[in-house]
């Protein structure tokens, strides 16, 4: 290994390109330091420091949206920034900001350490950003495992609650299983490619470009196909696609509400970002195998998610099960991206609308949970609209957007996905998706119904024994954030221009 080579490697280590991730990690470390040096009574400021720090990082990313490193291989090919990666950065930061906000609502109810929560959320977010940027399977796996292990801790964070720990253990076992499967797939891909020498430098099947090149010339290499399928299976676990959806309802129910939101939004988006990268940049030559597999997955996911959600009364499980069906719709977009290039934009647009709507709903849920975070059913929502019109309104907007009702953003997301699916001529999948949307109207409507309609019984039949549940009254900041989410959902549905210009269609 010559000095020249080392020099070139050192030069490609452009740490500035990873500024946001590094800032986030340093801020996370700073929180720990603050916990040590600050007196105990000042610890309550730490969450706000975390939120401000994340907002600063978000601002940095937005200001440097068109960075000079776009499309270049950095860190010796480990990292490659792409326009989608930039979108993902913003997405993950917005999401983690909102999760931290939810944390400030939920964590004070417990007697648990708090700073660690924000620390882990920030590290996991940075790891997700690296995951989306990674261009090399070693980087990919390390980032993915950082995210996964972070989630093991976060899911079981409320360790006073046996149900939370049970959810944590379930997530742990199934997550580790999926990681092992994915690892084996990566190994097979590495083995299939073997050794490639270019310009005197050795390359391996870990590198995405090399792998893509290899697959283009050997699209029927059995080892590679098996590896690709195993890797896609591992990602399917993260997004909760069939048949890896079994963990979702239990884990969503058991996890603390902010973590459920984090899982539902960031983890799922990371899964889709990775899947899109893999499908569009690495496994493209394997379309003959992957398209049928992914189509079947999408169909089964939509059907399973919606059918299971129909009779669900626990709202966190409902969010999980309906989230499965959303993953199914998104998978249609992924399948379509083989033939229609702008499908990637449609998927991201959908994810953005999903972020806004889900976070609004989880925000309301966070205010409604009592001491037991895992037990929240539709019955708790009775009288909500009457007693707390604001929370009721936010809930209606969020749930309506998830159901895809115009003029809310979710409708535009679904519309774009349907157009994409039509252009890709995926008619059977479209039919299933339509059926799924109709089913989803049933349970989403049930939610709205319990929040709005039951409460307004005529006075004669009023005395119902509906138990009253503790509702945390939103602070002004909380109201502002939830109101902004609802407003953004509404505006994006009526005038989707800004986001559609911003996404690199």
């Amino acid at each position, binding site marked *: 290994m010559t000095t020249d080579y080392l020099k070139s490697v050192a030069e490609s280590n452009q740490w500035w390109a990873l500024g946001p991730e590094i800032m986030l990690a340093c801020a996370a470390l700073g929180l720990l330091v603050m916990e040590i040096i600050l007196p105990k009574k000042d610890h309550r400021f730490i969450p706000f420091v975390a939120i401000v720090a994340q907002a600063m990082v978000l601002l940095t990313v937005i200001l440097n949206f068109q960075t000079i490193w776009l499309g270049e291989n950095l860190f010796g090919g480990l990292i490659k920034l792409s326009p989608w990666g930039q979108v993902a950065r913003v997405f993950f930061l917005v999401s983690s900001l909102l999760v931290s906000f939810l944390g400030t609502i939920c964590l004070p109810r417990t007697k648990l350490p708090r700073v660690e929560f924000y620390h882990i959320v920030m590290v996991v977010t940075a790891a997700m950003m690296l995951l989306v940027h990674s261009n090399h399977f070693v980087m990919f796996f390390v980032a993915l495992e950082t995210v996964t292990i972070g989630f093991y801790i976060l899911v079981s964070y409320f360790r006073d609650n046996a149900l939370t720990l049970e959810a944590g253990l379930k997530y742990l076992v199934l997550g580790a299983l999926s990681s092992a499967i994915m690892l084996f797939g990566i190994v097979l891909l590495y083995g299939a490619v073997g050794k490639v020498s270019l310009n005197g430098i050795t390359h391996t099947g870990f590198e995405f470009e090399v792998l893509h090149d290899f697959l283009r010339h050997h699209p029927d290499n059995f080892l590679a196909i098996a590896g690709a399928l195993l890797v896609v299976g591992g990602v399917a676990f993260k997004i909760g696609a069939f048949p890896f959806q079994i963990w979702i309802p239990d884990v969503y129910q058991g996890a603390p509400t902010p973590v459920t939101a984090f899982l539902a939004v960031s983890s799922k988006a990371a899964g889709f970002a990775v899947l899109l990268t893999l499908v569009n940049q690495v496994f493209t030559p394997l379309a003959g195998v992957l398209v049928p597999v992914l189509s079947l997955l999408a169909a089964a996911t939509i059907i399973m998610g919606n059918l299971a959600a129909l009779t669900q009364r626990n709202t966190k499980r409902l969010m999980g099960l309906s989230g499965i069906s959303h993953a199914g719709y998104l998978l249609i977009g992924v399948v379509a991206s083989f033939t229609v290039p702008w499908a990637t934009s449609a998927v991201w647009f959908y994810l953005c609308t999903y972020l806004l709507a889900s976070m609004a709903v989880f925000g309301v849920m966070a205010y409604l949970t009592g001491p037991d975070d895992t037990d929240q059913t539709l019955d708790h929502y009775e009288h909500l609209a009457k007693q707390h019109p604001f929370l009721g309104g936010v809930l209606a907007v969020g749930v*309506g957007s998830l159901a895809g*009702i*115009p*003029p809310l953003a979710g*409708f535009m997301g679904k*519309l*774009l996905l*349907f*157009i994409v699916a*039509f*252009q890709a001529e995926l008619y059977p999948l*479209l039919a299933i998706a*339509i059926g799924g*949307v*109709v089913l989803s*109207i*049933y349970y989403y*409507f*049930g939610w709205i*119904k319990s929040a*709005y*309609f039951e409460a*307004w019984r005529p006075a004669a039949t009023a005395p119902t024994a509906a138990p009253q549940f503790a509702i945390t009254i939103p602070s002004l900041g909380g109201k502002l954030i939830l109101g902004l989410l609802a407003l953004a959902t509404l505006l994006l549905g009526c*005038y*989707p*221009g*800004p986001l*559609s*210009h911003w996404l690199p*269609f």
Partner: protein
Amino acid sequence: MNSLHAQLLQLAIATPLVAALIIAGGLPKRFAVKLAGVAFVVPALIAAWLWQQFPAEGGATYHYLSNMDTGLGRFGITLKLGLNGIALPLFLLAATVGLAAGLYALRSGAERLKLYLMLLLIMQGGLLGVFASVDIFFFYFFHELALIPTFIMVGIWGGRDRNYAAMKMTIYLTAGALLSLLGLIAIYVKSGAQSFDLIELKAALAHQGLAPTAQKYIFGLLLFGFGTLVSLWPLHTWAPLGYGAAPSSAAMLHAGVLKKFGLYGLIQIALPLLPAGAQTWAWQLALLAGIGNVLVIGFITLAQRDLKQMLGYSSVMHMGYCFLGISCLSAIGTGGVVLLMVAHGLSVALLFMLATSVHHRTHTFDLAEMGGLAQKTPVLAACFVAGTMASIGLPAFANFWGELAIFVALWKFSPGLTAVAVAGVVISAIYGLRAVARIFFGPPSEHLQQVMAQHPPADLGWGERLPALILLAALLWLGFYPQALSRSIDQALPVGLASVSAGSVTVSPVQP
């Protein structure tokens, strides 16, 4: 001048929506009621003015066009508004029924009146938008905007079974809307026009239409999607239930106007863009509508004992005539459908409103209990009788011309179905007149006598009389002077259809 009219058109749609926003912003109730009243009147005035200014020979093209960017220009989605000869009558209908329903709601004294008015205003804005949209994406968008308040209103202010009714309506109508949305997307993708603009779609498909198989499938999607929304048998079951439970103003707007969305879509979009598809489905549609909607539902209507249920079923039945008219695929039939849509919208809104007025006085919808109301409330009785006669299709009312044109077209298409349709008129005459007899004449039940003794029924007050008179006047005016609308309708009918019935009489009947 034209740009001024285009702005007026925008203003007509925006007024109710903005008013709804202002009321949502926390306007005190006193002002909210006044604002709502203004917001219902303004579109009606604008609609009348636009109709008056509509060029005599210009029905074939769109007028008052305006275009607004939505940020989705790259998908060919822009907010493009305008009216042609078919859209104009329905726009007028929406404005008129909206005015009547709004005025009725102002005086209805409903609980949570502000929310009620707000939802009604959103509905009104959506309805006006539906018929003024040239862009088929916004055509759909406005429909949903008007549809959502319906569910909420049924869910909150509904009568018996409101939860079940709201749920069933939501699922059926959303499923229908999604199917038709798929059809619209299919047209967009397959036409290659890269635009949702109906004018551009027509231009793109004028040279070379879609392949016949594609047309067949897309027309099928639109037919059953729109069909569900218009209560095509056997997808109609939401309608009687929903109308039975809906509060009066919502039922007026939905049954009177919103339901016409599906028929309007078939006539304005499906027939001109997918002529071959229409050919393949014509007979199936005619049979479903003729046997199902007219005969089966006709007999079911005969068996109804509940006034509101009966009205709901009769509205389903009358939609059968509209479908029959469409399935003829002739200019005269389609023109008749447009006229009947307007006429039926007016008459069914009138009847739903008066049914609620009857309920206020008798506290029941049960036909068997009622009786003798004619002496106590003569104006109500007169209006109800007039509405029933219009609904049956007697001459002097607008419905007559629509049904007549449809029958003429149907005769050429299938004499057998014409016989069925005429039998349907007899059926509707039986149940209509029987209901009038039960409510207003003959002795009431003992229970009702007690109720009326305690609360002597008053005749229609101005809050009810004014909307009723508006609707009745429109029905009569169109009954005596159908040319007011039929000329522009004729000009706008799809070119392809004119050739089917080349040389046939126009819809305009002889001068009265």
